[in-house]
């Protein structure tokens, strides 16, 4: 009964979404307040319906209802309760329901928080969100019904893929989806603005919080996924340029560009057409990511059920939304005349450079990700494009971007003085060069980690110099505290996020000098790596809630003193007959000691040992970046009502 209720709620949500995508739009074009007024209640109704559907699905997983085929395929009664709940979105159908739930939540949020939005713009935004909802609800109902029944019900489910039974991966999809769906909102704003034929500073002010939210969550989602790959897959790596990873990186790159160009729209009323285009592209990239992951057209480590029908459906949605948006863009973009004028060396100029480089990186990553697909179609050649390509092609674009970041942040609007900005940054430049050369002298070849360290310090020191300059720390130290408190939170947010990028780059550079060893040890034997003595004490059996495991005890000592005891495991999940490797990691925030237990033979255990300097900084930096986004979001001007645009016809 409950699953049928859920199914019905989904269908109801779809009907409400259809109404939501038509009524407010008609109202907006007819300037009929009552029709436009349906937008809010419809969005709220859709949220309630989708939430009921989602709740029903969670319930089916919690009570392990084996008459629901989705539960049978992805759950098991012996699974811990936490993973029964998170297993709801650990599969294709459930994760799509979560996707739509977040979309409905965003629609309701626009309706609820957007009280200061002009009624017509708000109605149009909510209507466009309705279009997106209709597409994805139809996708769920017609190709991926999560409430399908099976008869007769099997005694128990087949279990969730053990590598997914993990808290990091339980939180990764919701974070990522808030990011993806957040770009659906900026997309809706872009299309609504095109329909209105007006983009102004107020529009930029409404778009920015949404792009900030989407960006911060996407950053966290990508970082969580990368962290999970690091500790769960046991390869000791953190980013593999896998197509699915790229699929999440593409919206991040375009979204980062959008975040910055929206500032220009808001502050200077320029780059309007470009920003609208970026908002469309960011959502297109989110959809493309969804398509790549769900359709299985690209080879990836992520094994979602590959169903061609689903791939075709999402591809069709992608075409309709993106082609439709571009059609409206071509029809309306000429109305958006630029008004702000600026010199090439200025804050605007720097933000244009930022956009150019970010979009170039996105283009390179897109080409590398999709090329195997096209090569297969065009020539039948089976090729793959791996990390060497992406490293070689993105680094020359990323380095100028990072070099320009602190300088751009220090330039004033309209007309700037690059030399003046450099003068205020000279100590940061000297310090980073010194660190780069010291790194080279101390560790020698390779040169890339040294460049990375120098760039990392450049970003962090540059952000510090920016703040120091704004609060006049050295010129009038007495008033610095006062000025620091008065500084807009957005300025703090930008500096913090830029510094966070620096921390991440430092982590990546640290991983560049990581060392590892593959050893076969008998109990009592030891190996040396990176100045540490790793001694295998014993390997023993252990019983978990739904798995049995072989656990090794490795004592790590340095100069005779015990540093830590690592317990890497190999888990065998009884239900799934699968084995997973649980890496043991000891971190002291500056380096990770990382041990993986491989197979055992002739009384010896095969151990892979890693010494990863600065590894935790990769994800810590991402956290700082997201924090910067949050700080910026809490800026006063985001909370205060945006001024009504000039000449706006705001019906009561």
């Amino acid at each position: 009964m409950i699953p049928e209720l859920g199914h019905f709620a989904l269908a109801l949500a779809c009907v409400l979404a259809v109404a939501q995508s038509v009524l407010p739009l008609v109202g907006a074009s007819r300037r009929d307040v009552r029709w436009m007024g349906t937008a809010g209640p419809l969005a709220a109704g859709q949220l309630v319906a989708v939430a009921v559907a989602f709740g029903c699905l969670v319930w089916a997983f919690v009570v392990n209802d084996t008459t629901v085929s989705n539960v049978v395929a992805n759950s098991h009664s012996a699974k811990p309760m936490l993973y029964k709940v998170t297993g709801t979105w650990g599969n294709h159908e459930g994760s799509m329901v979560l996707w739509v739930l977040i979309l409905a939540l965003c629609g309701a949020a626009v309706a609820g928080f957007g009280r200061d939005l002009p009624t017509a713009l708000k109605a149009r935004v909510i209507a466009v969100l309705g279009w997106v909802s209709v597409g994805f609800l139809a996708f769920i109902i017609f190709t991926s019904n999560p409430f399908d029944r099976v008869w007769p019900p099997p005694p128990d489910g087949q279990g969730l893929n053990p590598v997914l039974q993990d808290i990091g991966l339980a939180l990764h999809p919701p974070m990522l989806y808030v990011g993806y769906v957040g770009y659906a909102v900026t997309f809706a704003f872009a299309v609504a603005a095109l329909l209105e034929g007006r983009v102004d500073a107020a529009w930029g002010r409404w778009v920015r919080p949404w792009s900030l939210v989407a960006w911060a969550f996407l950053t966290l989602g990508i970082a969580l996924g990368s962290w999970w790959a690091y500790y769960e897959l046991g390869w000791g790596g953190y980013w593999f340029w896998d197509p699915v990873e790229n699929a999440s990186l593409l919206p991040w790159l375009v979204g980062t560009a959008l975040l910055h160009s929206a500032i220009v729209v808001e502050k200077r009323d320029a780059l309007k057409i470009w920003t609208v285009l970026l908002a469309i592209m960011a959502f297109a990239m989110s959809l493309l990511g969804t398509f790549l992951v769900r359709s299985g057209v690209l080879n990836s480590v992520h094994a979602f059920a590959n169903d061609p029908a689903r791939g075709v459906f999402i591809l069709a949605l992608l075409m309709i939304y993106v082609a439709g948006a571009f059609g409206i863009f071509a029809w309306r973009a000429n109305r958006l005349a630029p008004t702000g004028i600026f010199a090439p060396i200025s804050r605007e100029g720097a933000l244009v450079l930022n956009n150019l480089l970010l979009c170039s990186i996105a283009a390179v990553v897109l080409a590398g990700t999709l090329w195997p697909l096209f090569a297969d179609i065009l020539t039948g050649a089976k090729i793959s494009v791996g990390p060497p390509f992406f490293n070689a092609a993105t680094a020359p674009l990323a380095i100028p971007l990072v070099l320009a970041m602190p300088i751009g942040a220090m330039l004033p609007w309209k007309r700037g003085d690059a030399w003046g900005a450099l003068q205020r940054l000279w100590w940061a430049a000297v310090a980073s060069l010194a660190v780069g050369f010291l790194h080279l002298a101390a560790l020698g070849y390779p040169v890339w980690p040294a460049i990375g360290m120098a760039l990392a310090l450049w970003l962090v020191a540059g952000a510090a110099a920016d703040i120091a300059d704004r609060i006049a720390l050295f010129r009038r130290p007495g008033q610095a505290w006062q000025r620091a408190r008065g500084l807009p939170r957005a300025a703090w947010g930008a500096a913090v996020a830029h510094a966070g990028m620096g921390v991440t780059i430092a982590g990546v550079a640290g991983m560049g000098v990581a060392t590892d060893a593959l050893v076969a040890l008998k109990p009592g034997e030891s190996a040396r790596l990176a100045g540490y003595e790793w001694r295998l004490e014993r390997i023993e059996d252990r019983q978990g809630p739904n798995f049995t495991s072989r656990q090794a005890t490795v004592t790590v000592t340095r100069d005779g003193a015990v540093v830590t005891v690592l317990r890497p495991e190999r888990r065998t999940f009884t239900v799934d007959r699968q084995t997973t490797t649980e890496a043991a990691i000891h971190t002291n925030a500056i380096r990770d000691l990382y041990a993986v237990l491989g197979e055992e033979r002739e009384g010896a255990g095969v151990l892979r040992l890693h010494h990863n300097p600065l590894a935790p900084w990769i994800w810590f930096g991402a956290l700082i970046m997201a924090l910067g986004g949050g700080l910026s979001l809490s800026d006063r001007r985001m909370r205060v009502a945006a001024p009504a645009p000039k000449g706006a016809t705001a019906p009561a």
Partner: protein
Amino acid sequence: MTRKKRRLMVLLLAGLGLGTATALTLTAFQDNIVFFFSPSDVLANPPASDRAIRLGGLVEAGSVERRTGSDGRPAATFRVTDGANAIPVTYSGVLPDLFREGQGVVTLGRLLPDGSFRATEVLARHDETYMPPEVADALRRAGHWNPAEGPPPPAETWNTAPRQREGRSGG
């Protein structure tokens, strides 16, 4: 600066960015694209030994031999087959958890002059029922299995060399 001049500037910059990105992509493609070979492809058209390729097929049943390499590291040898031909593979490292005889595998490495393959990476997937698409395609091309006709035949029948009976029944 006039609007026209500014527009020209932006256009030039955008062209520069696009041009750089294209040039970077193309040069990086030239050096870094990795082609997929099935065992039959390798024999028909051997790749240069300085070029990394991906070799994929099924792990021949009964061919996996784990040993300790000359450098003291764990190593393994096995044969990758597409039903028509098989290539011996040596790999220094720990085989992934999902590596099984008779299942699909993709290895990354170089062909040695003696016709064997030295793998630097062995990929097996998260899901044990998953068959890499290239492998499925290679099997189809070798003429042993048409994916349109249902699930692949049992792994034992793929072996190119006749194998002694070991009294093992099924799995």
